[in-house]
């Protein structure tokens, strides 16, 4: 068994998830909100790989899931940044408080 208890990984992943959550809630710049989302996805990845290592060490299912998470995060980041650049070109800002024309 490894020298590091499983609870340490869970603690770090939870703390990182909450940091990402806080960033996504408070920032006004859309790109900073995207950074917060990516931090949350990464925290999830730490958990997936840690559980894979401690609960099913002879198999690699957790790592397979983590690879899928990374691939989908990459797709999401590419589309989101393209939308931000198009919005900046049209509106001159990526501040989410000014991008509210779809708000009811």
């Amino acid at each position, binding site marked *: 068994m490894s020298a590091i208890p499983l609870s340490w990984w869970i603690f770090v992943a939870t703390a990182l998830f909450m940091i990402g959550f806080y960033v996504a809630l408070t920032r006004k710049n859309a790109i900073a909100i995207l950074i917060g989302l990516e931090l949350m996805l990464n925290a999830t990845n730490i958990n997936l790989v840690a559980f894979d290592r401690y609960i099913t060490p002879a198999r690699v299912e957790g790592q397979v899931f983590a690879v899928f998470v990374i691939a989908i995060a990459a797709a999401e980041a590419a589309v989101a*940044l393209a939308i931000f650049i198009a919005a900046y070109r049209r509106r001159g800002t990526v501040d989410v408080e000014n991008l509210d024309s779809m708000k009811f």
Partner: protein
Amino acid sequence: MVEQIVFFIFTILVLGGGIGVITTKNIYYAALFFSASLSGMAGYFVLLNAGFLAAVQIVVYIGAIAILILFAIMLSRRMMTTKEQQTNRQTWLAAIASFLLFVALLGVVMQVTWPLSAEKHADNVLVLLGMSFLGSYVIPFEVVSVLLLVSLIGAIILARDIQTEEGRE
């Protein structure tokens, strides 16, 4: 013992990077702190016997996503205007909500007795990963590759400058 020291060093990188993202006013520095956090996570994956994921983390996250974010920041902001307020008015509310959720999640998760396995970890992780991707997970794998292609084309179309292209014709 050595593993624990290495774990603490990477934890400083990961959580320090995250706290840097929160505290810095400059969005460009926030993206740089974000890449520091990502590199710490690559170290975590090495500790967790996931060398392939560590390489993927560095190549895809730091090499592609973080650089893409830096480019988007440079394309969409005047870099020197760091004076303006970067956060909305709900800072305290969000801080309290995140902290309470953190305590609640930890309280629940720490009570669970995980079915820890005493088995030895697999030596041939890369072989097993390859078998999984082209074996039991072949359909999700293909779907993800189509998804990546779709998002690639979609990103190009979204970011294209329609007005200047029309002017050129």
